């Protein structure tokens, strides 16, 4: 049986609150945790079939057209099997949910580092050495510039209401500033990898991928095969952050090489290749205009964003995604401008859009607070709109005020507005800063199958992935809660395209979408049990393997005599448009800035977040901790540097691309507003929390630097040189 729900109406039943097992929303440990910390959770490149060959990419050292590829030395090396230069090799990974092949062909080089051939050998070391020995001749060809120059402004991405110019003219207080954020890399812990194995015309691919149902079509389209003949396995993924949303060059190359050699082929990217040949977040330039009355109430908002990508890529960083609805203001102009560049492909990197858009906007809001002489928390409070001010629709729920208040209280926010630079401890200047957190909430189509066995065990199956986020944990909890089972009686199988297609992991939709599919499947199982017991499903209590109804408590084995199976199917519907759905939060940070060197150390940081029903307090908190840690990197250290002459990524390792290390990350506290239920989102009243923790986090730190020093950094990251430039000699 299939339980299908389209979210056309609010679901206020709060069915999960009626359940009795008491495992959902708890801080349950991940069932996969022991496997991961003991090395028994197999990642993509770890299940190596007998006789597997190793492929290593040859990188393009410059932009242009490949004239010749001299692989004689490589082929002469002992152990080298072949050099693949197939026309189907990908230029760059597919964008998230593309569902089709990206640009293909290794002859036309659009960015330095583009994979242009795959050397296949019996050992990894041989393949790597042979790949380095390949001589490449590349001739000039017409290409986009290596740095953004000319921007297009697509009509459908511009919007305007009211008269912003007049609002700016008439305002008591205004801000009109340019800001920049650099390119970022996801830099997941597990480098991208794939192992391909053919059995006749059937291909099995072990990959490190986030969204398998799309990846299957993307890979099949790239190879020119029927998706039915393709199975993808990604049971464990060592971090994605968007860089594994779409099928990528290593998967296609491994499949082609395996076909060509008749043997399984594995391809694992080096760390340098992850930096230059997967996805980057576009650099952004942003102009923010704010017009406010003397009390800081916004009358006008302007937010223009300039971003870049390779030619023929439809994706562009959706910087202004939350600008239409976060704050009040009847006059509003939003602009989006895209330049074509010859740089590593731009795609989704954790919380595309808001991560950099909210960050910059919240720095501008801090500037407005200072200009207006209003406490920054109070300024936000005064500007929370009653309805989405752009679409004039209600919010499904708006928790910003609660998050601001709770966060300020938890942090001990000082609302006395001390003068910048007034608090000192020896060489160190101390300041506090805050920012709002906002992220749009979405639902994606997802299916899951749940099987309840008479022995009181259950199996959950979907091709949903766990990219370190906790999918195994929350799907276990949802099924355990709905079916009244101890969590250890529930097995969750993920990451296999032979299983019902879930949502995949991306855009913070995974937990709520795949979770809803599991919820619905469990509802189907409950209905069968209720039917067997002759009661209404709503009158059935399931707990500890017992079915309880009409004052009777019956072991499940006495209710059903065989496995009961149901498929859950959730689809987004009218609620996506009828109401504005978002997740909310607030960040608070205290920094110390060294008055000699401009070095910033975050001393403590707090975030309060609301994302509807929280499914697992521990994994939700971990997502927020991770997001805020990303925020520290975005604020202070992370910058993918492109060479000005050929656009290549200059800092291609973790020694020079500075993600925060432990010493950069202070005590971070996370508070989850557990009581929220958002009826418009899905039958669980839950929302995505994966990305919320980064959407503005960096602004709290940059604003704290200003409070500490009086230095306003508008070009991220706030490295010591930029801070030092504004300090006293």
């Amino acid at each position: 049986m299939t339980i299908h729900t389209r979210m056309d109406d609010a679901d206020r039943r709060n069915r999960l609150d009626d359940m009795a097992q008491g495992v959902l929303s708890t801080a349950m440990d991940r069932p996969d945790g022991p496997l991961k910390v003991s090395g028994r959770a197999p990642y993509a490149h770890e299940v190596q079939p007998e006789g597997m060959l190793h492929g290593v990419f040859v990188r393009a050292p410059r932009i242009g057209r490949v004239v010749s590829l001299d692989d004689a030395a490589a082929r002469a090396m002992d152990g080298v099997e072949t050099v693949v230069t197939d026309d189907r090799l990908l230029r760059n990974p597919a964008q998230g949910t593309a569902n089709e092949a990206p640009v293909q062909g290794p002859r036309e080089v659009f960015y330095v580092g583009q994979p242009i051939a795959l050397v296949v050998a019996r050992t990894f070391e041989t393949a790597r050495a042979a790949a380095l020995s390949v001589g490449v001749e590349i001739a000039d060809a017409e290409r986009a510039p290596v740095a953004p120059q000319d921007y297009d402004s697509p009509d459908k991405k511009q919007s305007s209401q009211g008269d912003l110019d007049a609002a700016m003219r008439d305002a008591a207080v205004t801000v009109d500033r340019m800001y920049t954020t650099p390119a970022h890399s996801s830099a997941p812990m597990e480098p991208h990898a794939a192992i391909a194995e053919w059995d006749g015309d059937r291909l099995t691919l072990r990959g490190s991928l986030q969204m398998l149902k799309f990846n299957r079509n993307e890979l099949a389209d790239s190879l020119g095969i029927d998706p039915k003949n393709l199975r993808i396995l990604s049971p464990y993924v060592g971090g994605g952050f968007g860089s594994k949303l779409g099928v990528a060059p290593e998967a296609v190359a491994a499949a082609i090489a395996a076909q060509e050699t008749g043997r399984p082929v594995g391809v694992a990217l080096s760390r340098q290749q992850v930096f230059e040949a997967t996805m980057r977040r576009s650099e952004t330039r942003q102009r923010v205009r704010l017009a406010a009355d003397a009390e800081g109430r916004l009358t006008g908002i302007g937010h223009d964003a300039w971003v870049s990508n390779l030619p023929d890529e439809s994706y562009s960083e959706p910087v202004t995604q939350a600008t239409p609805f976060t704050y009040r203001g009847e006059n509003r102009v939003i602009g989006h401008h895209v330049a074509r560049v010859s740089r590593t492909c731009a795609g989704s990197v954790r919380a595309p859009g808001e991560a950099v858009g909210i960050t910059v906007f919240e720095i501008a809001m801090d500037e407005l607070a200072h200009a207006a002489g209003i406490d920054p928390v109070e300024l936000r409070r005064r500007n929370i709109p009653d309805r989405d001010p752009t679409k004039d629709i209600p919010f499904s729920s708006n928790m910003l005020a609660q998050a601001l208040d709770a966060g300020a209280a938890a942090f001990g926010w000082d609302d006395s507005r001390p003068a910048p630079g007034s608090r000192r401890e020896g060489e160190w200047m101390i300041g506090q800063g805050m920012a709002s957190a906002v992220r749009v909430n979405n639902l994606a189509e997802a299916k899951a199958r749940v099987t309840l066995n008479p022995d009181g065990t259950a199996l959950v199956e979907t091709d949903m992935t766990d990219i370190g986020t906790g999918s195994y944990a929350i799907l276990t909890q949802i099924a355990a809660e709905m079916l009244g089972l101890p969590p250890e009686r529930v097995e969750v199988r993920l990451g296999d395209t032979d299983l019902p297609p879930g949502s995949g992991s991306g855009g913070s939709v995974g937990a709520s979408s795949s979770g809803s599919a599991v919820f619905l499947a469990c509802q189907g199982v409950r209905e069968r049990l209720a039917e067997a017991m002759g009661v209404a499903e709503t009158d059935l209590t399931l707990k500890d393997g017992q079915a309880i109804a009409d004052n009777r408590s019956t072991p499940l084995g006495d209710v059903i005599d065989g496995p009961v199976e149901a498929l859950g199917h959730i689809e987004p519907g009218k609620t996506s448009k009828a109401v504005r759905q978002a997740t909310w939060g607030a960040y608070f940070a205290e920094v110390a800035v060294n008055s000699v060197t401009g070095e910033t150390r975050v001393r403590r940081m707090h975030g309060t977040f609301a994302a509807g029903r929280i499914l697992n307090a521990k994994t939700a908190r971990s997502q927020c901790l991770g997001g805020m840690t990303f925020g520290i990197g975005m604020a202070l250290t992370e910058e993918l540097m492109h060479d000005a002459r050929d656009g290549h990524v200059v800092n291609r390792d973790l020694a020079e691309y500075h993600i925060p290390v432990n010493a950069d990350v202070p005590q971070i506290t996370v508070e989850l507003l557990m009581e929220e239920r958002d009826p418009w989102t899905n039958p669980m009243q839950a929302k995505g929390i994966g990305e919320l923790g980064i959407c503005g986090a960096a602004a709290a730190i940059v604003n704290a630097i200003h409070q500490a020093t009086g230095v306003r950094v508008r070009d991220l990251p706030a490295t010591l040189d930029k801070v030092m430039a504004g300090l006293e000699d």
Partner: protein
Amino acid sequence: MTPFDYDRATEVTQAIDAGRIIAGGTNLLDLMKLGVETPDRLTDINRLDLKTIEEHQGGLRIGALVSNSDLAADARVRRDWPVLSRALLSGASGQLRNMATTGGNLLQRTRCYYFQDVSSPCNKRDPGSGCAAMGGATRLHAILGGSEHCIATHPSDMAVAMQALDASVEIEGRDGARTVPLSRFYLLPGDRPDIETELEPGELITAVTLPPPPPGRQTYRKVRDRASYAFALVSVAGIVAMEDGRIAQAALAFGGVAPRPWRDPEVETALAGREPTAETFDAAADILLRDAEGHGGNDFKIPLLRRTLRAVLTDLTTEG
């Protein structure tokens, strides 16, 4: 990584005129994977008896294979040469310090982005090919001592402290042993940035010697892009002895700013006999920076070095 032969030396003589020497391998292996280093033979010296720290002429003799962790933790070093212990602990990570050796640390190669990228021209890696850092990304690069052929910086923290401590390097070669003061060990790039040290091909570093502990106070201050696990943008190893409210003598070495651990005797002369005032420190900084040259991305190192030097001198000359 190109295929290579591997052998192990069990006697120092076996490591002379042998293959490319590998000890901790924390730098060499990375560079081999990148194709920057392509030795056809590696000689592993980890079994040599060069792992002891012994007292020597009132100072210390540190075997070339003493790990950075062990050296930093040595009670004598921590007590009498704290600048060295601090410098070591400011470098790399715990895991790397456990592997990295004293001799290897001295010989680590630059972090210049272009040196590590075999697609870029680099006079250090491929003499005569040009310098891609010129006109490129230069955040890590030198403001002192560079040439038109190379502006790479030496990445070591340990060597900066040793430079301030007047350390010497003991070397074994086919013609026997010799000792080279660290102040003469490193060469400036000039028109041969590929030749980085006095070490001749086939020679082996066997030890570093420290003279007796210098009088005065010592510190190492490292300024970098994150709190740990980043190379120095600017670092200062400082040793200052005070007498009657004046600077009796100062030894100062600088990291992150030059192709070698930088020491400028004129800076120290300018400090000797002076009262520790802001004017004194600025005058010293003026001398230090008289020939400093930025290349765009590293321009900030000039004011940063001045500010850091002043702060270090203030710290070392202030009682309390």
